[in-house]
């Protein structure tokens, strides 16, 4: 299978300082190299604050089809079952926090399969009008990179509202 322009674009973005700085600060890392065999799926570890219970890092599978003209979508991943992590095992955050919304696993169209955020393709569907008004700073464009989305997830896993698993 040939490397697509979307894959080349993603690899260029992952080589930029924004992603590499996070790797060097142990905030996130590729779980495996980007490859044609896995495309359009990309796997990253994202580090979480220590909360006693809860993983030190979470595996996220990103679907980056048509990157980056199209929004990515991602979710926490169980590498043994090769499926999304069960909703009950997703990270928890204080009720009402941004993290609790982004990681919510019920009450929307794709619970446990995407992040409830304007950057996420699955969450965006059906919220176009509402979120265009409510989240003018979080509207995906071709200026965005996967690192922007990873940054959001990392922030949710590391601010004071994060509770662990």
């Amino acid at each position, binding site marked *: 299978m040939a490397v697509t322009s979307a894959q080349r674009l993603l690899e260029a973005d992952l*080589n*930029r*300082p*924004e992603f*590499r*700085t*996070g790797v*060097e*600060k142990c905030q996130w890392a590729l779980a495996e190299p980007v490859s044609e065999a896995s495309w359009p799926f990309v796997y990253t570890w994202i580090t979480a604050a220590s909360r006693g219970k809860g993983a030190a890092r979470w595996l996220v599978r990103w679907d980056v089809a048509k990157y980056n003209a199209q929004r990515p979508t991602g979710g926490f991943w169980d590498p043994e079952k090769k499926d999304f992590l069960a909703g009950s095992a997703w990270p928890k955050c*204080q009720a*009402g*926090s*941004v*993290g609790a*919304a*982004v990681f919510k696993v019920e009450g929307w169209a794709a619970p446990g399969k995407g992040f*409830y*955020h*304007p950057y996420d393709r699955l*969450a965006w569907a059906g*919220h176009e009008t*509402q*979120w265009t008004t*409510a*989240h*003018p*700073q*979080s509207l995906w464009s071709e200026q965005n990179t996967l690192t*922007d989305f990873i*940054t959001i997830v990392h*922030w949710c896993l590391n*601010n*004071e*509202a*994060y509770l662990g698993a």
Partner: protein
Amino acid sequence: MTNDTIEFFLHGKGKPQVQSGLEGESLRDVLARIDALPSDGELVFVGEPDDALRNDEGHDEEDAQAPADLGDTLGVLRVRELRHVHTRAVRRIEVTVNFNGKHRKRKFSPATTIATALAWAKKRFKVDPAAGADYVLQLLPERTVPRPEEHLGDLKPGATALEFDLVREVTPQG
């Protein structure tokens, strides 16, 4: 040792970029080779200072970071460890943060990150950590929310003052 190649992240010349130089090469030669030398009055900083997190109020009005000597080598400047080189920079950026009708000011190095400025602002406004978990710095007047690892000097190159509101990030709903 002097022939080892060091990769670093260059700020101040468009979007941050990955560059490299030899450990024994002077910073001036490296910046000249990549067309990133500062003009008269502009400075270069190496690293990301976090003085604002370590100093007590009353003894914390300004970052202490000194500009790099362009004649020093990448090795002497510890670029391998510090990683970030910020060129064409002003000496200090006066940051004003607004919160609940009050204001706090501090002079930061342009190489300071948003994460550091945010932590400083929460500390100065005595924001309860749990209650302030979702707080972010919103740049004025654009109302954009810079990423935590962005450098203050990258937001508006050449600016000597920046103003932010400390606000709660909007929660996705609907």
